[in-house]
């Protein structure tokens, strides 16, 4: 059944969802044990992963991905329970995956070990656990916040509240919470009456993720308008968090629940000719790679095979090069940062390579360093300084770039870019919209 037949549901009842999603003191049932020791067969100890790790560079407490991944797994015996606690210092940027020339399933190893550690060794009443659970379930927070966006923005921006967050929860007071949009993307979508283009053979289902919905609906709108411009039917199925922040915090069960709901709502569209499009590179990463690696749920393989990042999809399915070559925009310059998760999907160069041929645009890649925020990592009070140290290269390069507007696909990278430089940050889809629509 497609969205075309069933109008996408309106904003769900928050109370109900909240209870379902967020139970900070629940003790997990025994998760299915995964044995990833055979993955160590691929490692030939080249250390490419270690030199790619942005955390190991600034944090000597973190022993690096080679140890956390293939070495720790290989040393495991079945009865050994303990996973080294340094696993919690991994930011899940997945750059090690991108580096490994030998196909070691590093991030899968990290995710699984982290899940085991949180499951078996972390105190479920500890401040760290509760804080991580809250951060991992950003959607729940956002859903509540966006019910009263102005009030929430005012409260969260209040420095007293920020201090309390830091003292009580361990969420850094250095960062400003992102503003909630006064109208969510889904509200806008419903208001416009859903799809405005219908097509039998060009149809996509949009996975907007939490951030485009609650915080930057303009990205979601740009996606819809660009795709409709190319003649696509866009539908917006009901959805939950892609799971990225949950993986990063070892909240595998939360992620699995959300994955189940996403599978239910997206997998059925695929036989009807829909491909799945994400505008957030971490969401597309999760649907493509982490879902099939971590969960055995019907439909996830299909979803993985049919998920694309938005611009990637157009590059493959449309003559985007020519469209861009024929277009022009008013003079503007961008400092572009490729998110780590985009890198992993081979998407780190596409914005720069495409837009450098767009009349009026000057775009510079600010280097291949990690922004340092890695989703929830940089929000943790004890990681904040390290996060900023990791980001310092990027801030430097941004300041040296000609443009005073940042550009990236990842919502949390954009928070970090803004936090470090004060620049406005755009999503490539917004420029694409300006050029083509």
């Amino acid at each position, binding site marked *: 059944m497609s969205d075309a037949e069933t109008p996408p549901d309106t904003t769900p009842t928050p109370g109900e969802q909240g209870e379902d999603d967020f139970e900070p003191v629940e003790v997990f049932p025994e998760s299915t044990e995964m044995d990833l020791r055979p993955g160590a067969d691929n490692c030939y100890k080249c250390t*490419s992963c270690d030199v790619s790790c942005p955390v190991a560079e600034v944090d000597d407490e973190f022993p690096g991905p080679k140890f956390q991944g293939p070495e720790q797994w290989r040393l495991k015996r079945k009865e050994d329970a303990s996973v080294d606690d340094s696993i919690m210092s991994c930011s899940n940027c997945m750059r090690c995956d991108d580096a490994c020339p030998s196909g070691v399933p590093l991030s899968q190893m990290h995710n699984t070990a982290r899940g085991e550690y949180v499951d078996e060794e972390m105190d479920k009443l500890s401040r760290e656990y509760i804080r991580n659970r809250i951060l991992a379930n950003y959607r729940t927070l956002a859903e509540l916040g966006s019910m009263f966006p102005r009030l929430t923005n005012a409260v969260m921006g209040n420095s007293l509240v920020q201090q309390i967050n830091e003292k009580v929860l361990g969420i850094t007071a250095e960062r400003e919470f992102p503003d909630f949009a006064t109208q969510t993307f889904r509200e806008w979508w419903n208001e416009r009456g859903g799809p405005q283009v219908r097509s039998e053979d060009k149809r996509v289902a949009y996975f907007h993720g939490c951030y485009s919905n609650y915080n930057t609906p303009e990205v979601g709108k740009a996606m819809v308008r660009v795709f409709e411009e190319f003649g696509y039917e866009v539908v917006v199925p009901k959805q939950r968090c892609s799971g990225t922040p949950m993986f990063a915090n070892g909240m595998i069960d939360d992620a699995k629940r959300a994955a189940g709901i996403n599978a239910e709502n997206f997998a059925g569209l695929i036989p009807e000719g829909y491909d799945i499009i994400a505008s957030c590179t971490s969401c597309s990463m999760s649907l493509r790679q982490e879902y099939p690696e971590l969960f055995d749920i019907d439909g996830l393989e299909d979803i993985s095979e049919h998920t694309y990042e938005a611009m990637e999809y157009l590059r*493959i399915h449309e003559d985007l090069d020519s469209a861009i070559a024929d277009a022009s925009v008013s003079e503007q310059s961008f400092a572009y940062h490729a998110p780590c998760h985009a890198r992993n999907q081979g998407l780190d160069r596409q914005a720069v390579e495409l837009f450098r041929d767009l009349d009026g645009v000057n775009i510079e890649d600010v280097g291949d360093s990690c922004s340092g925020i890695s989703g929830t990592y940089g929000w943790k009070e004890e990681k904040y300084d390290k996060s900023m140290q990791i980001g310092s290269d990027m801030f430097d390069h941004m300041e040296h770039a000609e443009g005073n507007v940042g550009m990236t696909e990842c919502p949390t990278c954009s928070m970090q870019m803004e936090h470090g430089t004060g620049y406005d940050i755009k999503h490539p889809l917004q420029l694409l919209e300006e050029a083509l629509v």
Partner: protein
Amino acid sequence: MAITDDVLVIGGGIAACTAALSAAETGAQVRLLAHKKSTLRQASGLVDVLGYAGDDGPLANPYDGLDELPEDHPYRIVGEDGIRDGLRLFDEAVGDAYRGGHTDDNALVATYGGTMKPTARYPESVASGLVSASGDMLLVGFESLTDFDAPVAADHLEAAGVPFSVRGVTLSFPKAFRADAKLTRFAKALDRDESVEGETVRSALADAVADELDGESRVGFPAMLGDDHDTEVRDELADRLGVPVFEVPTGPPSLLGLKLEDMLFDALDEAGVRIASGNPAVDFEADGDRIETVLVDQKSRMTPYEADQIVLATGGLVGKGLDSDREHVTEPVFGCHVPHPEDRYDWSEPEAFGDHEFARFGVVPDDELRPTDADGESHFENLRAAGGVVGGAHVAREKSASGVSLATGAVAGRLAGEDATQ
């Protein structure tokens, strides 16, 4: 619809980068299709051309050894001109960051194992530490960095009869890290000149080394002296010590290799080469003896890339451009012929440093570097090969790995570019 370019270079190492730069020079639109991080990160960052040939070596001049190489050696195919062209592209790509271009002669460089080896190009940070230059030397190692034992390396160099005296000391790094802190942590601390007990780490390190300095005219460290700000780090240490400071190239984790990789990719960017990385080329579609499309495994789905000409530079056994099982050695992307003995026990020699067959494994190029089948016919008219995937050279013995990559990359890239832009 496929993503389309004139020349598609598959690979991400030194051969692939050189081929892409070379093809771009012809005016072709070039795309580099890299899978993961290349073997540059495992290599020392030195660029060897030829150090040993036949029974000769170490060769003071690499070109003197060319005639000693077997007929099917890639150098015999591309010739001296090909080697020189590869070096030219390299020198242009890295600019002042590398030395050695002023002469044909090899330099002798100390390795982290305490041996020395002949090399044609070396990073600027290595220059003042040449073993073929005079000046007494102090080598500095650190307690928890087990890869480089400075006193052992120093004694080893003396055992080789270097014409100067050399001494090694082991220090504790001024900033206390956990014993398993990564090398990049040390580099970063120096890069940012982090503070340590009211001092800065660079000055604290200089003080510690100054206490050990006993008239030596140069001081060497394992290659960990900074990353983004390496020149600054080295200059400050040299300034404080009053003698030049140099780095000793290391194996993995090799920051010099990493920096070389960055420089080459910057050069690609500069040359307008497009880059798609992160996913492997795994298959292709062909029409007769022309490859039409290369298929990239983009996380459980194939993305097609189209080009007029293709250069295969996926590396050898280490770079995973060659694969093997108990019976066969294969080139996995295009299935090119890789000759090898039938019995796998003949792939290697019992002596660890014997003349291993596996070291020469690779595709067999024709005189335009097209991989050939068992009958000597090229597999595809628009496919060329460069670097480690090309067989016939025992690069480890010869100390010719980078040179073979540069030379075959330069030639394969140029020919591909010319064919594509005709």
